[in-house]
């Protein structure tokens, strides 16, 4: 009897210990599909770099929250001069880099000057193009002077490539990232996982997690069992495909569908006949059925778009009705272009499911109006050199994931080969407009021009399929920028 009591007591105790250990869980393993090539966001464009480091390891003057709003980060406040050309940032004090060195205005000056230098290899160098001078007024104050008012300057300073690095460690950040964030790199087992640990000397609110591991799971088939077995507890954006329904019906997991900045479009080579004719582009736009494409290419989860703008962003105008799905109308447009017998063209598809699956649907939809598409699958490297750099293509499908990138249609030499002076004027005006309402108005105007002029056929906004343990809180719902910000992530009971 006594023995039984002891055993029972021991069992209860160990159970209590187990539950309290569970309640206090402070580690997290996240799955990511692509491994970052390195961990320096100021030196590479790969989205995976930002996923791991943004807000976790590196911080900028400002930061972007999961609603796409600008929040203070290393700068606690700022003042803008009356002419909109000078920004004076007041910096937080007591901030230290992960190697123990102190953060000051000099680091801000160093980072911004480095990013805009002539020999800069910053992947978003255009963000810094309007800066003419950066002055460290005192250790806690930085003054940035621009060549004119810049409507999106504070937002730009919160982007992934604009994070602040230290002079002494900047060159080593690819392998040993030294930032100011609430997490620091513990180790990186290449090809396998990247482990971050809590930074005990963090200047702001400490993170709830002690350890976060980003494990690289390149295969869809592997992602599902990894989640089901508990090896991985969260995917910020899961390559779930057909398994999503199974996961959604499992109460152990939360499935949160959010928005991204990924406008998935059928890009058109606007200078290449017959696509230089507006009527031909209008025919394409009228012939495609967005809902069928969304069903095939994004599990039915993407939001239809009618222009190059995310439905989640301020200023969005619903333009999906400009060219409704109408085969008869599409044929009429082709006739107007003198191509009533149709024509043949090629479509180059990069190796992502949305493009490969969407391409087949578009091929069959365009067949209905007599346009015969030949599908050419390409890998990313080929896509970048053939389509993006050499503009050797007719049509392609790609998702433009850069935030607020409607201006790409005004960039000279961009692969759309689109040149519309009216549109360029709107973008120019937008660049120098600071007033919020005026900006939204201009953004609406830009969207409308694109929707009517069809430099590309707008398909859908790429969804973010967040899947994580139901006990996990604080993961981002949306991806205004591709970042897995873990600063507010915690386990609950």
């Amino acid at each position, binding site marked *: 009897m006594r023995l039984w009591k002891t055993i029972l007591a021991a069992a209860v105790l160990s159970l209590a210990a187990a539950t309290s250990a569970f309640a206090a869980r402070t580690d997290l393993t996240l799955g990511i599909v692509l491994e970052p090539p390195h961990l320096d966001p100021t030196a*590479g464009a790969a989205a995976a770099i930002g996923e791991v480091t943004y807000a976790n390891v590196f911080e900028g003057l400002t930061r972007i929250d999961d609603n796409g709003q600008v929040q203070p980060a290393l700068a606690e406040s700022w003042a803008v001069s009356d002419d909109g050309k000078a920004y004076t940032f007041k910096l937080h004090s007591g901030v230290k880099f992960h190697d123990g060195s102190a953060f000051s205005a000099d680091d801000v000056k160093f980072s911004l000057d480095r990013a805009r230098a002539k020999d800069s290899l910053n992947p978003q*160098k255009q963000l810094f193009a309007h800066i003419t001078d950066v002055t460290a007024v005192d250790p806690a104050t930085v003054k940035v002077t621009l060549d004119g008012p810049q409507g999106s300057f504070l937002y730009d300073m919160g982007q992934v490539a604009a994070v602040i690095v230290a002079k002494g460690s900047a060159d080593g950040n690819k392998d040993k990232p030294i930032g100011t964030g609430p997490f620091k790199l513990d180790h990186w087992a290449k*090809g396998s996982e990247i482990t971050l640990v809590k930074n005990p000397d963090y200047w702001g609110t400490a993170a709830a997690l002690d350890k976060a591991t980003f494990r690289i799971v390149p295969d869809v088939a592997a992602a599902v*069992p990894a989640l089901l077995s*508990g*090896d991985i507890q969260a995917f910020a954006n899961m390559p779930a495909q057909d398994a999503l329904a199974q996961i959604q019906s499992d109460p152990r997991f939360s499935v949160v569908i959010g928005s991204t900045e990924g406008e998935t479009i059928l890009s058109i080579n606007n200078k290449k006949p017959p696509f230089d004719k507006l009527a031909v582009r209008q025919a394409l736009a009228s012939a495609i059925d967005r809902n069928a494409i969304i069903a095939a290419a994004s599990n039915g989860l993407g939001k239809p778009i009618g222009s190059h703008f995310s439905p989640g962003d301020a200023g969005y105008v619903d333009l999906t009705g400009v060219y409704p799905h109408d085969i008869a109308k599409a044929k009429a447009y082709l006739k107007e272009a003198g191509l009533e017998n149709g024509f043949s063209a090629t479509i180059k598809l990069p190796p992502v499911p949305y493009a490969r699956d969407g391409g087949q649907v578009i091929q069959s939809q365009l067949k209905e109006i007599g346009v015969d598409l030949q599908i050419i699958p390409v890998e990313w*490297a080929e896509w*970048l050199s053939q389509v*993006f750099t050499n503009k050797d293509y007719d049509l392609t499908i790609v998702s*433009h994931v850069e935030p607020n990138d409607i201006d790409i249609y005004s960039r000279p030499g961009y692969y759309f080969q689109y040149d519309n002076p009216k549109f360029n004027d709107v973008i120019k005006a937008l660049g120098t407009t600071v007033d919020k309402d005026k900006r939204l108005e201009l953004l609406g105007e830009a969207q409308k021009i694109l929707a009517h002029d069809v430099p590309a056929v707008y398909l859908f906004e790429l969804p973010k399929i967040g899947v994580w343990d139901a006990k996990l809180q604080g993961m981002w719902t949306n991806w205004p920028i591709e970042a897995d910000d873990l600063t507010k992530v915690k386990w609950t009971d």
Partner: protein
Amino acid sequence: MTAYLAKRLIIAALTLVLASMVVFAVMEVLPGDPARLMLGLNASADQVELLRNQMGLNAPLVLRYLHWAGGLLSLDFGRSYTYSVPVIDLVRERIAVSVPLALIALALSTIIAIPVGVFSASRQGRAGDTLAMGAAQIGVAVPNFWFALMLIYLFAVWLRLVPAGGFPGWGAGVWTALKSLILPAVALALPQAAILGRVARSALIEVLNEDYIRTARAKGLPYRAVLWRHALRNAMIPVLTILGLQFAFLLAGTIIIENVFYLPGLGRLIFQAITQRDLIVVESIVMLLVAAVILINLLVDFSYAIVDPRLRGRQ
């Protein structure tokens, strides 16, 4: 024997030189610019050009080949464009996964295949043989990634005995690391064992029909002794050939299994390097693999000599 060895070594060296030219040429004609891949869509053409210069991509082709091949001679494999670390460091990390995995899979497949082959051959045409060869047929036909997924669902998701994938590294403890290699090794070993078992069986059946086997039996040796001592030894040559080929395959040809178990092995490194146009990594690792395959073939040739004394005296 020495002349034979010397001849083999010269052929091996020539193969290496030829392979280096082919590998380099093939990678060079692949479309795609590593600099543009690294800098992304928003970088300007000037920036891409700057990075190309930094990476030495604008030098003439022949110069770059000589530079690379010269480096290989002094065992300098260059630096990865994307990771910006020496290629040899990457290889060292990956070999720590790929070589043990290949060895375990090879050992497993041998342990399964040889007894099955002997069993089947000695019962040729009977029920046991039909059953074993039927199983082998299934083993060859089932795709190993499907088999791998079934193993994962059974042992990782349902029974939770082993992790569903990943590799914690040998630093996490030998047992922890081995645990994550068990399922992939089994998934790799079974199809290999099926092939090896069939080869062992047919080689053995052929040997069992030889006159000397009948003679051995006639002089009163028990069947088991004839089978294991005389027949099996003579049937080893085709088995060793297949084993050598399988080891070469297991070292880097296991990319599908590496993907399913997300193991950081050599195969995945090459695959990733190709998609990122990390040319130097692809070129150097392929050369290492070519060297490894040549070496394995040499070893197989020598092992023939060990199992077959007649070969020792030959040219």
